[in-house]
């Protein structure tokens, strides 16, 4: 033979071997890679936040000798600023602390204290008892050459004169918005609180009317108030005392001030040293002399009244808490203690995120607006700037799976609510209701599917006439190919209204179909004595039973409304609500049982039928030859032999039901509730992904949590499928070529 030709063939063969081997291996491994890539997206959820010192600089020379009262920084590590006791506001370069601009805020008075109100807004308390509200801004602008410079400005400054009293207030603070309801609150030496408000109301025609009102609160008299805070809108006022009491007032309308709370918050009478409102102004953060930080919000108590209640306890400090400042982005809190150590904690997840400290104790600390930067000044006036990487503070194992007491909820709960209209919303990422939804839907679907599919498979493979068998199996297989979107659409838009209309018929059917089946059997026993009917006996049973089922279905359909009229006053849904307190949803678990069940029946049927048909016929022949009846043969011989295959069929069906998306998306109503009620819907993991992923910002917490739910879904189906596969492989080995 031609040597060249042989060489060519051999070369081709070698090449093919390489290509196929390399291709095959790489395809298989790249497909398996999917799992790892999805998991990779979720990893940042569980990583600890990190901090990194960006710069550490001494106080600029010009400011030496002055005491720093407050610091602040932007999110881009460009600009920082500080207030000193001499009333100087210094804008600094964040990197090297060079002074960019100095602003003298005072007209001679000393600055006593500075309170941050968030978003670069501050309330300043002067030694002449005047309070100032001001907002800082540093907008960039571009000149003609395109050079970028930053303008540093104090945007709005509003001064509020002290109340007309003889003494110097112990503490003063501002709340509300200037030009709307700016409120000045003064704590007097004896514990009285004076509130003065300058309210501006605009009527329909745009005329502004200014009213001044004031009130004096006497409830704090003699209690020794040690901390005081009001919310940003000037609606609520909170106070803490030396002996661990918490007080609160509704000061929304000064003419009708109402005390809301007066309770012993700490039984060991520890002194409350710091109060602050968590972002959103619902929760109150309380710091005490023992270093504890806890958050409180009003919950309906035993008396039916709203009362402050301790909800979350955060990482305790080792010494008294001196200040708490809330994050402006989420429900995180920055708390500073007497030792000069700052803790960053998240309220909802109760996670201790980071600790900040330097060689000398920190005295002032502040987060940037978006939480990317953290600046602090220590005892010696040294400024420290940290870069903070804290992408998902709200996620912890507990918030994902456990019960969490969310703001304004009456009790701890597992809730999924990923978004809301407002920015200060507390995201609720509990996967529990979704996992429950998946399991509930799967459970009802399997209850419906397993008996039908297995019964059908047993009958088709063992009892059915061979002529029918060769049609039934392909028919069922074709049913498996019906797109789930079609099943879902029919279930939601055709079946659901139908069942809502005829729910009683369905319930009757559950009762009467088996009953009529028994009756039909008895009648058949009588009839089959006739010889010509005997011919139809074996292998044709399902045809004989078909009219019975159809007839029963028709009867219950007609009888349903009559029974509803008689027993349930004509409206089952109303009866259900009044008598059992259950709500009837149109898209409920019955619909899911039918639709999802129908989607998995062909899968279970086909695999189970294969398993039964593959049992060596010799076993069957032997059993029948020993005189066993055909059912005894099936029950005692065939089913045990095929049981691994049947088990695999159920597992694969289960895996399919868990992962099915379109049917549950269309027919469940998508309400994330934990309720086993047959007449309610659910929200499974799969449809939750489909619903929410288009709106999830890439890399955000929601995005990663959705990937986590995909991983959970994957893990569930993977487990079921692997079990099934292993069992099937065993079966294959056991029965060899059969």
């Amino acid at each position, binding site marked *: 033979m031609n040597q060249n030709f042989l060489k060519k063939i051999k070369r081709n063969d070698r090449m093919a071997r390489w290509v196929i081997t390399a291709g095959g291996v790489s395809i*298989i491994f790249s497909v398996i890679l999917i799992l790892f890539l999805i998991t990779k997206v979720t990893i940042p959820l569980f990583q600890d936040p990190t901090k990194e010192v960006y710069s550490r600089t001494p106080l600029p020379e010009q400011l030496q000798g002055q005491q720093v009262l407050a610091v602040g920084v932007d999110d881009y590590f460009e600009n920082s600023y500080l207030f000193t006791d001499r009333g100087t506001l210094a804008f600094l370069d964040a990197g090297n602390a060079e002074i960019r601009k100095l602003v003298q805020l005072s007209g001679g008075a000393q600055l006593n204290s500075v309170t941050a109100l968030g978003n670069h807004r501050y309330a300043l308390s002067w030694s002449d008892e005047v309070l100032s509200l001001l907002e800082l801004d540093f907008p960039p602008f571009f000149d003609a050459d395109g050079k970028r410079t930053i303008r540093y400005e104090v945007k709005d400054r509003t001064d509020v004169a002290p109340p007309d009293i003889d003494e110097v207030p112990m503490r003063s603070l501002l709340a509300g918005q200037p030009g709307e309801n700016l409120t000045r609150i003064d704590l007097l030496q004896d514990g009285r609180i004076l509130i003065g408000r300058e309210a501006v109301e605009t009527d329909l025609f745009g005329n502004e009317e200014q009213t001044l009102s004031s009130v004096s609160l006497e409830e704090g008299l003699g209690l020794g108030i040690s901390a005081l805070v009001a919310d940003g809108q000037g609606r609520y006022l909170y106070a803490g005392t030396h002996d661990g009491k918490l007080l609160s007032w509704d000061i929304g309308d000064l003419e009708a001030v109402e005390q809301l709370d007066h309770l012993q918050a700490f039984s060991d009478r520890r002194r409350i040293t710091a109060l602050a409102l968590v972002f959103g102004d619902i929760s109150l953060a309380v710091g005490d002399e023992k270093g504890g930080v806890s958050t409180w919000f009003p919950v309906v108590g035993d008396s039916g009244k709203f009362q402050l209640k301790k909800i979350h306890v955060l990482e305790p400090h080792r010494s008294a808490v001196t200040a708490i400042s809330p994050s402006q982005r989420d429900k995180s809190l920055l708390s500073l203690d007497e030792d000069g150590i700052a803790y960053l904690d998240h309220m909802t997840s109760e996670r201790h995120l980071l600790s900040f400290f330097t060689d000398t104790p920190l005295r002032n600390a502040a987060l940037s607006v978006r939480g990317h930067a953290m600046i602090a000044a220590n005892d010696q006036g040294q400024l420290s700037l940290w870069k903070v990487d804290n992408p998902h503070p709200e996620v912890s194992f507990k918030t994902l799976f456990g019960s969490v007491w969310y703001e304004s909820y009456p009790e701890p709960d597992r809730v999924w609510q990923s978004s809301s209209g407002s920015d200060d919303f507390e995201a609720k990422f509990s996967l529990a209701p979704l996992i429950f939804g998946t399991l509930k839907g799967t459970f009802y679907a399997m209850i419906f599917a397993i008996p039908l599919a297995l019964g059908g498979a047993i009958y088709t493979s063992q009892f059915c006439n061979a002529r029918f068998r060769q049609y039934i199996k392909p028919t069922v297989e074709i049913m498996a*190919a019906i797109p789930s979107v*079609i099943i879902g*659409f*029919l279930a939601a838009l055709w079946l659901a209204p139908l069942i809502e209309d005829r729910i009683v018929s369905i319930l009757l059917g559950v009762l009467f179909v088996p009953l009529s089946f028994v009756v039909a059997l008895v009648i058949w026993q009588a009839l089959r004595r006739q010889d010509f009917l005997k011919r139809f006996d074996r292998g044709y049973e399902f045809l004989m039973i078909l009219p019975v089922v159809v007839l029963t279905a028709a009867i219950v359909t007609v009888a349903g409304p009559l029974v509803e009229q008689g027993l349930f006053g004509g409206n089952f849904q109303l009866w259900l609500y009044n008598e059992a307190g259950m709500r009837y949803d149109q898209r409920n678990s019955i619909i899911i049982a039918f639709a999802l069940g129908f989607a998995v029946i062909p899968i279970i049927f086909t695999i189970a039928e294969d398993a039964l048909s593959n049992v060596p016929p010799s076993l069957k022949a032997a059993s029948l030859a020993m005189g066993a009846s055909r059912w005894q043969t099936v029950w005692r011989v065939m089913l045990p032999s095929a049981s691994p295959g049947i088990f695999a069929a159920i597992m694969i069906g289960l895996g399919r039901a868990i992962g099915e998306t379109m049917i549950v998306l*269309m027919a469940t109503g998508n309400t994330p509730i934990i309720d086993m009620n047959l007449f309610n819907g659910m929200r499974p993991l799969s449809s939750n992904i489909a619903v929410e992923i288009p709106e999830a910002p890439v890399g955000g917490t929601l995005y990663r949590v959705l990937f986590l739910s995909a991983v959970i879904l994957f893990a569930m189906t993977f487990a079921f499928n692997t079990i099934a596969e*292993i069992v099937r492989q065993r079966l294959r080995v056991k029965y060899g070529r059969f």
Partner: protein
Amino acid sequence: MRKYLREGEPFVWATAATLALTLIISAVLIVVVLVNGFGVFWPSKLAQVSLTDGQKVMGEIIRTEEHPDGSGLRYQFKTGNRDLYGLDFRWISQEHVTLLEYPEDAVGLERQEYGNFYGYLKAFSLPEGRVEAGSLKQQYVELLPEVQRRMEHLDDLQDEVMVLSRKMQKIDLETQELLYESKNPDVSAVQELGRREAVLKEDFATLLTRQNKAMDGLEAFVGIFVDAAGKEKNIPLSHIVRFYEPNNMNVLEKLVFYLGKLVELIFGEPRESNTEGGLFPAIFGTVVLIFLMSIISFPLGVIAAVYLREYSKEGPVVRLVRIAVNNLAGIPSIVYGIFGLAFFVYGIGGSIDALFFPERLPNPTFGTGGILWASLTLSLLTVPVVIVSTDEALGAIPGGIREGSLALGSTKFQTLMRILLPMASPGIMTGFILAMARAAGEVAPLMITGVVKLAPALPIDGVFPFIHLERKFMHLGFHIFDIGFQSPNVEAAKPMVYITTLLLVLVVLLMSSVAIVLRNRMKKRYTYGTF
């Protein structure tokens, strides 16, 4: 009797009953789809009722049922005329009806907007100087060619507008690119582009005036219609898609009407936020998607299976891989979808944008869902199906055939190409068809990788470079979900959902039936008798 129970005969009957129930449910599903789907286009008679309060209502009777308060029958009318009444449907109790008739001259109109119109043709309002003679119907027939000619002219103008706007868009992109690439761009080139754009803009303006004029000329042909109550409505003839008198049609005419609608369904563009008109973009999108999926998934699947069956050494590793592959076939499609989103769309697509189209950022080109990413995701989803079926087909070939071929001196590759693959081809084909059927019906992963409600352009068209893989697309399955669940008027959209469902069911059932027949034929050829 006890013997009867012990022998378990009732249990046999019970299994028979479950099979019967399964078959009934399947049959009901198919029948519901067929009845609702096939019936959609058949023109139903227009009924006119006079009510006790003197009102007259005309429409198709959709449903007749017992009134819930037990006062007798009630009819659900599809009254159309959304622009006049605001609603498409109306319930009328039989007790309020004094007269039910089917007027011969009742007219149904399918319109470009506001859904159907039911009423009577009263007169025509034509451009000055034109007078038509004969009956109204004859006049309409004579006017139609003229109107159509003008509409075609308008379409031509519209095409020109599209060409011009595309040119302008291209210049815009070129300008962006020039400005992006260098700090101090070639001023003369930019100015040149600006000049060209100005010329185009001028052309564009004149074209628009011509278009407006043609439009005005066309809109002058107006039909004056009245509804059952006598309310007049002027409808430009160009807005009428179809004019018919259902009460005056014989079966043959109805059949022609039906076929016309069917042709429109398959080749027409959708109207009225997808609830009317055709499905062409959705069918086209589905076909392109399946095609792209196939050319990626089939070779990969076959190579992987050939490796597993013919080249790898049997052992625990291969067994594990096989379990993994079977397992992958069972992974939820939404998981594949979310992977496609992260890996293809944001990962690869984002990188392509950053490398090749940086001047268009932040508007994504490939970094957003598109038909390429959707088909890649789908091919990942279908690769296991192809692997499993090819693997099984190769495994079913008796070892003797391989040995025979090798013994005759052929190499392994020759054996594979000349003997094994041809013998396994029915099984492999089965895998392909099953994969295609799965791809046709799968919606969840597409929803997050690039399918849209209404795509402005097809993924393949006559504009360079002809195949636009980055474009978003429409899909039959998503169409069902979208118009059934996200359209503003679900009740009015139902017929369209049913017909789309019917189409999809037919396609998928046809494909799977072919697959099953192929497989059975193959089984017969290569299985050797067991007993």
